[in-house]
C-alpha cells in the first residue's frame, strides 16, 4: 500500500473504535486499579467524537482539526486533551487528500509533538507515551514506502511498550499518587493506544 487516502484513514479510526469498544471494560479495569476507572469510557467517547466528524471529508487538514476540536468539546478527562492535541498536531503536518509513506510518518510525528506540548511525560513514566513514542519511532525507523508495513511496525512497538509499563512506577496522571503500588499493573492509556495501533494495521491489512 503506497498511498493513504482520507477514506482509508477514516476506516483506520473506525476499526480502532470497534476494537477499543470491545476491550473498553479491560481499559477501565486497569484504570480502576491505579486511577479512577473510566479510561475505557473516555477512550471510546474520544474515538466516537472523532469518527463522528468523518462524514464525507475529503481533506486531511480540515478533517483532523475538526476531529480534534470535537473531541475536546464532547469528551473529557486526560484523554480529551491528549487525544485532541494528537489530532491537532497531525492536522498541522498533513495536507491534501492522499499521503505517501514519509508523509504518514510526518503526520504521526506531528501528532506526537502536539501531545508533547501538553505533557512532559516521556518513555518510562508509565503513561500512554510508553506506547505512542515507540510506535512513532518504529514507523520512522522502518522507513518503508509500504504504509501497511509502517503500521505493522508501529503496532508491534506500541504493544511491547504498553506491556512494559506493567513493571514501571507511575510519574504522571492519577496513578502517580499510588507510588510503588502502581507497579504490577499495565497503564490503561498505553494499553488502549496499543490497541488502536493494532487496529490501524488491521484496517489496512484487511
Amino acid at each position, binding site marked *: 500500500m503506497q498511498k493513504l487516502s482520507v477514506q482509508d484513514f477514516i476506516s483506520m479510526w473506525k476499526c480502532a473504535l470497534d476494537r477499543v469498544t470491545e476491550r473498553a471494560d479491560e481499559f477501565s479495569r486497569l484504570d480502576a486499579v491505579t486511577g479512577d*476507572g473510566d479510561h475505557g469510557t473516555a477512550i471510546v467517547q474520544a474515538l466516537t467524537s472523532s469518527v463522528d466528524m468523518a462524514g464525507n471529508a475529503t481533506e486531511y487538514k480540515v478533517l483532523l482539526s475538526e476531529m480534534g476540536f470535537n473531541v475536546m468539546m464532547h469528551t473529557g*478527562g*486526560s484523554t*480529551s486533551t491528549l487525544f485532541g492535541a494528537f489530532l491537532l498536531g497531525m492536522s498541522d503536518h498533513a495536507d491534501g487528500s492522499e499521503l505517501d509513506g514519509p508523509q504518514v510518518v510526518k503526520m504521526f510525528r506531528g501528532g506526537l509533538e502536539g501531545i508533547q506540548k*501538553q505533557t512532559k511525560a516521556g518513555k518510562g513514566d508509565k503513561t500512554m507515551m510508553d506506547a505512542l513514542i515507540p510506535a512513532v519511532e518504529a514507523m520512522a525507523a522502518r522507513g518503508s514506502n509500504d504504509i501497511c508495513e509502517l503500521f505493522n511496525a508501529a503496532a508491534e512497538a506500541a504493544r511491547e511498550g504498553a506491556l512494559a509499563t506493567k513493571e514501571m512506577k507511575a510519574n504522571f496522571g492519577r496513578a*502517580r499518587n499510588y507510588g510503588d503500588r502502581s507497579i504490577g499493573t499495565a497503564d490503561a492509556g498505553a494499553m488502549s493506544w496499543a490497541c488502536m495501533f493494532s487496529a490501524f494495521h488491521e484496517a489496512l491489512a484487511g
Partner: protein
Amino acid sequence: MNTKIMTKFINEPENITRELLDGYVLAYSDKVALAAENIVVRAVPKDPSKVAIVTLGGSGHEPALSGFVGEGMLDCSVVGDIFAAPGAQRLFQALQLFRRDAGILLVVLNHSGDVMSANMAMQLAERAGIKVKKILTHDDISAGIDTPEEDCRGLAGCIPLYKIIGAAAEEGKSLDEIYEIGERFNQQVATLAVAMGSCTHPQNGATISELAVGEMEIGMGQHGEGGGGRQMLESADKTAEIMIGQLCEKIQPKTGDKVLLYVNGVGSTTLMELSIIFRRAHQVLAKDGVEVVHAKIGELLTVQEMAGFQMILAKLDDDHVELLKNRKADAPYWTTV
C-alpha cells in the same frame, strides 16, 4: 473493577451528567442556569465590570463544583462527565462567554486532566485575546509535606477558596488583587482525605479502590485513586488526631492564630460521624491555643457513596476571615447571610 448490580437511581449511564444538571437548575432556577451544555452560570449575572470566577471539573462530586455558582462565589462552573475534566474546547466556550476587560480568574484543581484541559483552553483563549489568569489549587498533603506543589492534588480546599475570591471579585477588586488573595490562601491551606470502603463508578459499575471491611486509607484521592497507606480502622478520636496532626505539621498554626477547620463528608459517612471527628480535631487545636474562626461540617465535595471524609485546615489572614464570614453569598449549596 468488579461489575456488580448497580444500586443507584439513574437512567441511561451516558445521560447522568446532563440529567443531574437539568435537575439541579430546575430546583434552583432563581439562582443558576445552563448557558450551554455543561456550562452552569448564575441566573442573574454579575456586573460585567467585575472579574469573573470560572472553574472546571468532573461531575460525580455533587454539590461540588456547580453547587457553588451564585452571588458572592462562582460565576461559572464548566462540568465534565463523571470524574472527568471537561474538554478544552468546552472550557474555551465558557471563557468566550465571560470575556471582559476586568478579566477571568480560572480556578483549576491540580489533576492531570483538569490541568491539561485548562492549559489547552488558555492557549485558545490567548489566541482569541481573552484575558484570563489561572490559579491552581494543590491542597492535598498525602504525598508528604515537602512535596512540590505541582505534585499535590487539588482537593476540597478549593471550596473556601471560591468563597474568598468570589467575595473579593464581588467587591470589584482587580484580577491581580484577587489572584494575590487567593494565592495567599492556597499557600496556607492543607487537606487530607481518609476513605473506608469503596465506591461505584456510576457509568460502568466499577468498584474503585476496594478496601477490606475494617480497613481505612489515609491520603485517599477524591476519585477512589489511592494515596497514603492502608491501616486498620481506628476510633473517631484517633483518626481525627492522626489527621489534624499531619495537617498541623504542614500549616504550623501557632497560639493565637486564626484558622478554618472543615470536615467534608465524601459520601456515606454520616454527619453524626463527621461531627464526632470535628469535635476531636477542634479540641486538639484548642489545646494549643489555636482559634477556629470558621468551620463547616457537611458534604461539600463528595466521591459518590464512598465512606470517608476530607479534613481541611487553613491559617487565615484578616482579609480572608472578612471575605469568608462577613460577605454575602447565595449559591444553592453555600449561603452566607
